């Protein structure tokens, strides 16, 4: 079983997240691996462990600091780490990013075939959930997205996905792009040995030239959308907090009535 997991470097949920010149501010200090990608790493490790053989590659696309994301994946137990970094990638939209990831996936796949690419269900900066679909389309592999359950047998992957109107079971032949939700599993904690090993582990660093991707096909120039403005929302005004000493429910009712909400 050979699996590549995509992990994104995103600002920490608890940090003060912000925008700089139309893109998400990402620094080494307050950023790490997208939390939802822990479920992707976990899903890959569990499949390899169950198969009793195999390898997990962690791949990130991003600036120099993004290496933190693949180091985290190594700490969790991924065997290899790849960091695709190139100034020309900056400002890519989802389709540009999918092109770069697809090229890197093909490079690994050409060395020895991969069975699966597993991604998180969404990156917690943009929360768009578009990349897995764009990647499956770009690779022309099977698309099995938003999996809350995943099984692999006899060259086929089967997922369960919960949509608001139905629970679907979908299957497709390998190789497949699978995105997993945070319900798919409980991510493990890194152990001390892996943390130490991850520090020294080698991370392959690839440029667009290494991948044979034309710089004009990616980056801000090729992006189909541009962030033209980003501003912090003003805090809510006139906020009230009361303590219930027997009249709390009445006060709440009055508030709602006065606001025309009840």
């Amino acid at each position, binding site marked *: 079983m050979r699996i590549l997991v995509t992990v994104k470097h995103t600002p920490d949920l608890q940090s003060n997240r912000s925008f700089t010149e139309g893109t998400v501010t990402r620094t080494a200090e307050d950023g790490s691996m997208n939390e939802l990608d822990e479920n992707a790493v976990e899903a890959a490790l569990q499949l390899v462990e169950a198969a009793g053989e195999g390898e997990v590659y962690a791949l990130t696309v991003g600036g120099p600091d993004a290496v933190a994301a693949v180091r985290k994946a190594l700490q969790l137990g991924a065997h290899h780490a790849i960091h695709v970094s190139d100034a020309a990638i900056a400002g890519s939209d989802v389709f540009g990013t999918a092109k770069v990831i697809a090229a890197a996936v093909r490079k690994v796949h050409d060395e020895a075939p991969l069975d699966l690419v597993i991604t998180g269900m969404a990156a917690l900066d943009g929360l768009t959930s578009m990349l897995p679909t764009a990647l499956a389309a770009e690779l022309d592999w099977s698309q099995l997205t938003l999996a809350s359950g995943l099984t692999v047998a006899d060259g086929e992957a089967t997922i369960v996905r919960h949509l608001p109107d139905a629970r679907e079971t979908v299957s497709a032949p390998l190789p497949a792009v699978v995105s997993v939700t945070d319900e798919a599993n409980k991510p493990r904690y890194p152990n001390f040995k892996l943390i130490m090993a991850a520090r020294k582990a080698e991370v392959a660093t690839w440029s667009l030239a290494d991948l044979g991707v034309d710089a004009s096909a990616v980056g801000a120039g090729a992006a189909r959308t541009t962030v033209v403005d980003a501003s912090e929302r003003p805090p809510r005004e006139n906020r009230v907090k009361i303590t219930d000493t027997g009249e709390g429910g009445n006060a709440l*009712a009055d508030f709602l009535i006065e606001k025309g909400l009840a």
Partner: protein
Amino acid sequence: MSVAVLIEHREGHVSRPSLEALTLARTLGEPVAVWLGDAPTADAVAQLGEYGATEVRVAAVGADARLPAKAAAAVAAATEDATVVVVISTFANKEIVTRLAVLTGAGVVVDAAGAELVEGKVETTQTVFAATWNVRTRIDAERAIVGVRPNTTQASPAASPVEPNVVDIAVELPETRETVVSVEPIPQADGVALDEAPVVVSGGRGTGGDYSLIQDFAELLGGAVGASRDATDEGWISHEHMVGQTGTTVTPALYVACGISGAVHHRGGMQASGTIVAINMDPDAPIFEISDFGVVGSLFDVIPQAIERIAAHRAG
């Protein structure tokens, strides 16, 4: 400019967000409705016309359209002339529009709270980082796809209703590797759907598993019942009720959080709501950082009293 709106419908009824999307589409150009599935009823067609759709394009795809690549092919066939395609920003539609954009080269923004034309280009607004930032995005590509969140445009009928032409669209669905093995429909809770509801009353771990007060309060306020992840994990209430970054994102006019601490994961799915009310025993609960009206107290005391007062007020 022709603006195509992908209509959401269930058991023949047009969803309210679809009417919101048509209302928004009218500000961008001339709306046409795209309908996947069995032909709409005369009532549905009339309603779409009332909200300004000049045409209803029907692609009679069946259950196959659950696969995003197939649905995208159907939408592509029905929107060849459209410069803008508007859909409701659901998980399923995000996948469909991603495929559609791969087919047509369109630029996409999902989770938009609004869209307008600026110098001939579509510009959208959306909130990010658990609704702490506003972002404005311009779609530079010739074709634009906008996924809008429910409750972000006030649905209103067109100044004068039109009688839409109903047009059948022939689609040849592509072969896909994926096979839908089974579909188990989820029975819909009575009343309004969570993501469309103008009011959401949510209960968390603080309910201890008893949702009867939450349900009563939601019913009184004409809203839907939501929950935190801990509550759905406990099995107290089904997964479809979960509000949050990985559950349903809601933007109702009123959000009432009862016995919910306000973890960042939860806030990500409700922080853009109009008015936020919190009831929590812990004065330091983070939910109070974003509530317009907070009551430090037990939901078992506060909710019954509030219900009684509101009912009495209504009775005059």
